[in-house]
């Protein structure tokens, strides 16, 4: 079974969000272990750029494995403040430690949005 940490929030598109989702706060975003397992070994991540405006549910990058490619959605609206450049050389971090070294980008949130809690996400992937 894939791990679903209790202290994170989740989108139905299999992103996790760490931090307070409220205007002005910066949150960290990655994809869940469930999503990483379904993709297989990630070999390439197309990251958004710092300063990009993103909207919740909008495509802001791509995650490519040998078997498949998946679009990367922003789970929140706001402005990209950082991207995990280390993924360019070590995209496998998304598989190896999806909730830590495999983080993908940080967003300064511009508006409230309701996300799934761990229990709701666990039900979503059950």
């Amino acid at each position, binding site marked *: 079974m894939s791990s679903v940490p209790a202290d994170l929030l989740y989108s139905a598109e299999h992103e996790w969000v760490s931090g307070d989702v409220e205007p002005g706060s910066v949150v960290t975003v990655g994809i869940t272990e469930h999503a990483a397992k379904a993709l*297989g070994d990630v070999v390439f991540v197309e990251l958004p750029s710092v300063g990009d405006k993103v909207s919740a549910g909008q495509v802001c990058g791509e995650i490519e494995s040998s078997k498949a490619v998946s679009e990367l959605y922003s789970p929140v609206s706001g402005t990209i403040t950082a991207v995990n450049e280390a993924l360019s050389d070590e995209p496998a971090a998304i598989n190896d430690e999806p909730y830590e070294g495999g983080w993908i980008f940080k967003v300064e949130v511009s508006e409230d949005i309701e996300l799934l809690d761990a229990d709701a996400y666990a039900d979503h992937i059950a």
Partner: protein
Amino acid sequence: MTRSPLHDEHVALGATLTQFAGWQMPVRYAGDVAEHRAVRTAAGLFDISHMGQIAVRGADAAAALDFSVVSGMARLAIGRAKYTMLCTADGGIVDDLIVYRRDWDHFIVVANAANVGTVTEELSERCEPFDVAVENITHEVSLQAIQGPKAVDIVTEMCELGGDDVRALKNYTWCTALLRGDVHAMVARTGYTGEDGFELFVTPQDAVEVWRLALTTGVPYGLMPCGLSARDTLRLEAGMPLYGQELSLSTTPYTAGLGWVVQTGAAKELVRPGLNGAVAFTDERIERGDFVGSQALAAAKETHDAWAADPASAPHDARVLVGLVGQARRAARPGYAVMVNDVEVGVVTSGAPSPTLLVPVAMALVHPTARAVGTVVQVDVRGRRESMTVSALPFYSRAS
């Protein structure tokens, strides 16, 4: 949903399972890339029990198969195998096959999982006038592949008897061996990875024992169990076509650059043994008789030769198979359009980031004007074009 006789082994190994042609099969265990690399550097173990097997037996077996497929089968020596195709009368590919000659009157045909029903029906129909029985034996055989540079050491060590025979096998030959634990196996030096390797035909009852023997013998050599995902990237790097992607009813062997499978010349043929039981080839070379699709394929050959000589003469919808290597990171995937100067010239049939070459690779069916090695094409990768260069196939060849 059919389960492999090795289903419980896959679950115990933590495999991610997928549905493939009506079978539930492992897509990966530890990870696609690690599995892919294990095959390139050491060895990989694949459950390919989903592959279809069809037995063709009877006094006319060789003649019946010779009539049914595009390669000469009467000329195939006992102990050899042949990559071939079953084509329609129009030359379209029904399936690509490996045919193993077990005896003068006994062949085993290995077909793609999705096609085994069609191939069985088609062969039965074509073999009707002959003294031969065609039988789908897929569920009576478990097929396991051990592939990679260490495969020969591993399979030899798995043998109780016949290890020397296994080591001496040439590509596309087979022998029988007694594996440790008194398991009888047909061991063929065939595969679908571009590496040296073997395919083991065993009964479903023995499948688990053979799988575990392969793991315990192979793991010290670096063997990993491998899923369908690694199998797909391995065959793509090796430039091997996959039915449903590169091959279909609307392509001929010539479209795929595999015209060599069509055999029309004369050859010495095996004759049925006399009362003394001795099997021998004829002294004289015998002209190959008519076979299904022969006329259409002769015409297809002429057409493709003409396109090769003058690509611009080919009609708008003419297609030939090429390899593509990406200039950037985003990979082409099946179905993506291939463009030259904003004109659509073809479509990607397979594509992935190559785990060995670390660049995107793809196969595509394109117009003959775009086939020359070095031609730069654009592939529409989800709305953004990526430049790719036409490249010789295969992308990867093992050191020999």
